[in-house]
C-alpha cells in the first residue's frame, strides 16, 4: 500500500464529547476518540487494513453538519465539534445494527462464533431484543461452502464488511475473495461462486482471523479429537507448533505475549492426550535436512556448475506459501526445499519411528497437531502426506480450537502448573522456537549451516542474527559472508550468502516477481504466508493485529533466549533419531519420510 507522506507537525484542535483535544493532521475521528479512551463501535474497521467506511456503525455527530460522518473514514478538521453518544448517534447505530441483523442468520446458538462474534457483541450492547425490522433472511438464497478442508464460508452469517476481501487483496495479494453483484444481491464471492476448494485460496485463514462474525471460520475437528481421546484403542499423540505457546493464553483470557508453554503441556495432558510432544523437535530436524539440502544445492551450483540446480532455494514450512507457489509461480516449484513442513515430518515419524520405539501399531495411533494455522488442515489432507502408510497427521486444530477444548474441559488454565513435554520427540532448541516468527527459519538454518561449514558459531552477538529477522513492512534482505571454512567446504570460501525473508503473501509476491524478473538474486529465501510469520497465523486467537503480533514476537525471541539449547544440531534427540532411525541427513529414510514434491495448480 502506498501511503502519502504526512506532514506530522501540523496539529488540529477539536472537541470530542466536550473534551478539547489536539491531534496530528490526518488523524481520523475514531483514532482521536480512542486516544481519549472513548470507544466508538466498529465492524468493517481493522487496524491491519485500509479504511472501508462501509458498515457505518462508527458514525458520530458533527455539529453544524447534517449527516453523521463515519469516524473511521473521516479525518479531523480544525474546530470540529464531535458527539459520539448523542441521541441521533445512538438511534442511527441501533438502526444499522438492526439492519445487519435483519440480513443475518442470527441463530447464534448454532454458530461456531457464538460468544466471540462482534455483531453479537454490538447487538447485546444495543439491546436489540425487540427486532425493529422485518427478517430478510427467508428471501435470500444463502449458501454455505462446506467443501473445503480448512475453511468454511457461510454467507448467511456475512455482514459484507469486506474485511476478508481487503485481507485477501492487501495483505495476501491473492484476491480469492472479492465482492460480487450489487444492491440487495451484493455478496462476498469467489470467482464464479466456486467453492474455496476450487479457487486460488491458499487457506491461510487471514480472512478467518479478521471475520467479525461466523461467515468465515475454520473447519473444526474438536469432536473428532475428543472421540479419539475417549477411544481406549487409540493412542493419541499431540504436537504443538512454536507459535501456539505465545498466543494460546490470549484465547484463555491472559495478557497478550505471555509464554504459556508449560501450562499448555499440562492442559494437553489433562485433556487426555497419551503423549504430549513438540513440533519444535521436527523443526530442528527440518533445519538439519534443509541445511544439508541448501549446502548440496550450493555445491552443485558452485562446484559442479550444474545448470539444472534451482536457486534460490525457498523454505517449505508454510503450507499457505506452498499453495500460493503452486498457483501463482508454478515454474518455481523446483526452488522449494523438498523438506516437508515440521508438522508433516512429525506426522510421518509418529507413525513410524515413534510407533516402533513405543511398540505401537501405527494404525492405532491418532496424530493430532495444534497449529496457529488453517492451511495446515489442508496440508494434512494432501495426498502427498501419507508416507507412513497412513494419514501422517490425522487432525489439525488451531490455537483457537485448543482454547475451546481447554474451556470445555473446565480447566483453569492460568492456575495450571508448568509441565514438560514428553520425551522422545519432545525436546527442542531455541532455533526451533523462532520458526514461529518471520525470519526464524532462516536464522535457525544459518545458526546450523554456518557452524557446519566453518566449525564456528555464527558471528552475531548471542547467536541473534538480527539482520534476517523479518519485518512486516518489506522484504528483508541480508548477506552473510562465509569465511575460513573447513577444508571439505572450501568451495564456499568467501561466498556471500544472499538471503531474503518475506512474510505476508503480498510481500512474497513482490519477492518472487523480483526473482523472476532478475531484479534480485538470492541463494536462500524464507517465506511465511502470514503477516509476522506463524505468530500472526490464521489460526491464532482473534483479534490479531500489528500490536499483538509485536508482543507475540517479543515472547518468541524471549523463549529462544531462555532455552538451554539454541541450535538445532545440538538437540540430543536429533542426534538420537539419526543414530537409531534416519541414519544420515538426506539419506534414504529421510527421502522416504521427510521430503516431498508439489504439483502446479491453476492460476485462475
Amino acid at each position, binding site marked *: 500500500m502506498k501511503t502519502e507522506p504526512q506532514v506530522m507537525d501540523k496539529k488540529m484542535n477539536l472537541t470530542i464529547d466536550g473534551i478539547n483535544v489536539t491531534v496530528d493532521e490526518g488523524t481520523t475521528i475514531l483514532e482521536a476518540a480512542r486516544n481519549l479512551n472513548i470507544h466508538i463501535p466498529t465492524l468493517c474497521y481493522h487496524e491491519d487494513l485500509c479504511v472501508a467506511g462501509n458498515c457505518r456503525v462508527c458514525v458520530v455527530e458533527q455539529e453544524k453538519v447534517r449527516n*453523521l460522518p463515519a469516524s473511521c473514514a473521516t479525518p479531523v478538521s480544525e474546530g470540529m465539534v464531535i458527539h459520539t453518544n448523542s441521541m441521533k448517534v445512538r438511534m442511527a447505530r441501533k438502526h444499522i445494527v438492526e439492519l445487519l441483523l435483519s440480513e443475518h442468520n442470527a441463530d447464534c446458538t448454532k454458530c461456531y462464533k457464538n460468544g466471540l462474534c462482534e455483531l453479537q457483541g454490538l447487538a447485546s450492547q444495543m439491546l436489540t431484543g425487540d427486532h425493529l425490522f422485518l427478517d430478510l433472511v427467508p428471501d435470500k438464497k444463502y449458501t454455505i461452502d462446506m467443501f473445503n478442508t480448512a475453511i468454511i464460508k457461510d454467507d448467511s452469517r456475512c455482514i*459484507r464488511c469486506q474485511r476478508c476481501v481487503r485481507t485477501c487483496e492487501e495483505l495476501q495479494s491473492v484476491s480469492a475473495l472479492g465482492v460480487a453483484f450489487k444492491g440487495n444481491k451484493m455478496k462476498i464471492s469467489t470467482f464464479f461462486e466456486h467453492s474455496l476448494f476450487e479457487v486460488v485460496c491458499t487457506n491461510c485463514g487471514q480472512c478467518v482471523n479478521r471475520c467479525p462474525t461466523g461467515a468465515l471460520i475454520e473447519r473444526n475437528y474438536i469432536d473428532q479429537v475428543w472421540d479419539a481421546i475417549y477411544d481406549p484403542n487409540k493412542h493419541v499423540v499431540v504436537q504443538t507448533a512454536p507459535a501456539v505457546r505465545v498466543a494460546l493464553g490470549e484465547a484463555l483470557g491472559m495478557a497478550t505475549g505471555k509464554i504459556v508453554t508449560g501450562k499448555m503441556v499440562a492442559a494437553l495432558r489433562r485433556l487426555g492426550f497419551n503423549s504430549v510432544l513438540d513440533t519444535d523437535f521436527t523443526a530442528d530436524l527440518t533445519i538439519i535436512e534443509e541445511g544439508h539440502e541448501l549446502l548440496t544445492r550450493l555445491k552443485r551450483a558452485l562446484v559442479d556448475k550444474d545448470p539444472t540446480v534451482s536457486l534460490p532455494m525457498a523454505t517449505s514450512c508454510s503450507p499457505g506459501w506452498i499453495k500460493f507457489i503452486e498457483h501463482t509461480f508454478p515454474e518455481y516449484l523446483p526452488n522449494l526445499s523438498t523438506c516437508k513442513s515440521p508438522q508433516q515430518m512429525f506426522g510421518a515419524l509418529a507413525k513410524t519411528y515413534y510407533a516402533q520405539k513405543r511398540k505401537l501399531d501405527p494404525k492405532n495411533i491418532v496424530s493430532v497437531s495444534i497449529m496457529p494455522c488453517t492451511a495446515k488442515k489442508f496440508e494434512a489432507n494432501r495426498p502427498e502426506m501419507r508416507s507412513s502408510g497412513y494419514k501422517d497427521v490425522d487432525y489439525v486444530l488451531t490455537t483457537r480450537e485448543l482454547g475451546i477444548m481447554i474451556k470445555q474441559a473446565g480447566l483453569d488454565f492460568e492456575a495450571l502448573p508448568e509441565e514438560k513435554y514428553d520425551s522422545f520427540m519432545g525436546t527442542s532448541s531455541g532455533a526451533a522456537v523462532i520458526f514461529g516468527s518471520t525470519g526464524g527459519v532462516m536464522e535457525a538454518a544459518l545458526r546450523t549451516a554456518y557452524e557446519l561449514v566453518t566449525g564456528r558459531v555464527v558471528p552475531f552477538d548471542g547467536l541473534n542474527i538480527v539482520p534476517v529477522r523479518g519485518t512486516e513492512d518489506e522484504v528483508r534482505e541480508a548477506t552473510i559472508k562465509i569465511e575460513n571454512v573447513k577444508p571439505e567446504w572450501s568451495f564456499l570460501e568467501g561466498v556471500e550468502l544472499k538471503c531474503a525473508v518475506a512474510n505476508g503473501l503480498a510481500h512474497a509476491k513482490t519477492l518472487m516477481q523480483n526473482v523472476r524478473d532478475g531484479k534480485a538474486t538470492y541463494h536462500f529465501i524464507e517465506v511465511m504466508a502470514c503477516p509476522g510469520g506463524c505468530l500472526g497465523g490464521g489460526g491464532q486467537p482473534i483479534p490479531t493485529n500489528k500490536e499483538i503480533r509485536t508482543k507475540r514476537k517479543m515472547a518468541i525471541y524471549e523463549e529462544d533466549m531462555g532455552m538451554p539449547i539454541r541450535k538445532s544440531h545440538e538437540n540430543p534427540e536429533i542426534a538420537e533419531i539419526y543414530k537409531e532411525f534416519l541414519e544420515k541427513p538426506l539419506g534414504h529414510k529421510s527421502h522416504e519420510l521427510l521430503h516431498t514434491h508439489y504439483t502446479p495448480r491453476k492460476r485462475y
Partner: protein
Amino acid sequence: MSEQTLKRVDLIFGEYSNEKYKVLASTLERTNEDILQDLLESGLRGRGGAGFPTSMKWKFTAETPGDEKYVVCNADEGEPGTFKDREILYRVPRKVFSGMAICGKVIGAKKGYMYLRGEYKFMVPELMRELDSYHEHAKQLGLDFTIEIRMGSGAYICGEESALFESMEGGRGEPRNKPPYPTTSGFMKKPTVINNVETFVNVLMIMRLGPDQYKKLGTTDSRGSKVFSVSGDTPIPGIYELELGMPLDRFVDEFGDGDTKAVQVGGASGFCVPRKKFKDTVIGFEGVPTGGSMMIFNSSRSMYNVLHNYLEFFEEESCGQCTPCRVGCQQLLKGIVAVKKGEKKALYLDQLMKLSESMKITAKCGLGQSVANSFSSIVNNFKEEMIY
C-alpha cells in the same frame, strides 16, 4: 417574470455560432483568472442535481498542485425521469466538448473523459464524428486537450462522481469516502473536475454571452436556465429549457393533464410534491432542486405503486457496500408491502420513516442519503394510499 406562461429559453439548445469552435477559440485567448471570474459572477451551479458552484470546483482543482489533472463529463444520466443529457449530446455535442476544453485550460488538464451510460451506446458513432472534428480544431488552435469517451454498462450508481471514477478505473462502481473530494483526488486519484453535461454547456454559454447577460435568467439562488425532462401524465412530454426559479403550480398548469395530483421533482431520488403544495413550491436551489426530472402523476395513479417502483429501483441499483443503503432499501420495500398487505400495522410506517431518516444521515453516498426524499415525501403526503 411573465404571469401567463413559463419562460422558454433557447440557451442550451440555441444554434451553434457561425464558425465551428469559435467561442472556444476566443476563450482560449483569455486568462484563467478572467474565466474563473466570469463563472463566479454568473452564479452557475452544477446541473447534475447537487448544485455545487462550478467556479469553486474549478478554482479548487486549478489550485491543487499536480502535473496530471483530468476533466470528466458525467453523462451517466440514470435518474428515472431524466433524459435531457441524451438530448443535449444529440443536439449540441460541440458545446459540451467546448465546455470541457475550457475547463481543461483553466485547471491545466490535458485529458478529458466523457462517461456515457451504456444505455446510450447507440449515440457513440455520432459523438465520435463530432469528437474527430473537435480534435482537428483543437490541433489548429494549438490546444493540448483530448477527449475520450468511456462507456458505462448499466449501473445507476456510477452517476455518483466517485463511483464513476472507480468504474473508469476498472472496478465496481462503489462510491468512495469523502473527503478527499475530486478536486484533490478524483480519476486515478488525481485532481479532477467532474461536471454534468449541461453544466459544461452552461459554461460555454457564459463565455459566449458574458456573465451579465447570463445572470438575467433565473433567480438570485438559481441563475440561468435549466433543461427539464417532462414525463408521466402529461399531454406534452419531452425536453424543455425553462428559466430556473419557477413556481410548481405554473409548471403544472402548463404541463399537467388537468388532473395532476403530484409531481415528482428530481427523479426517484427527489421529492414528491402533492397538489396542495404546488403553489408554495419553487423549482430551483432555493426550493426543490432538480437535475431536470419532472414526473407528473394524475389522480388515476397509485402513489403506493409509484413508491414501490422507486424502492425496487433503489434496492437493485444500490452498490450494496454500505449497510444503511443496502439493507435499508430492502427494508423500506418489504415494509410498505407488509403494511399494504396488512401483515404489519399502519404504525410500522413510522418506524420506516425513522429508518429512512437514519439512512439519510448515515449512508455513504448521495444514493442512500436521498432514498428518504421520495420515501418520506410520498408516505407523508399519501399515507392512506400506503395503507388501504
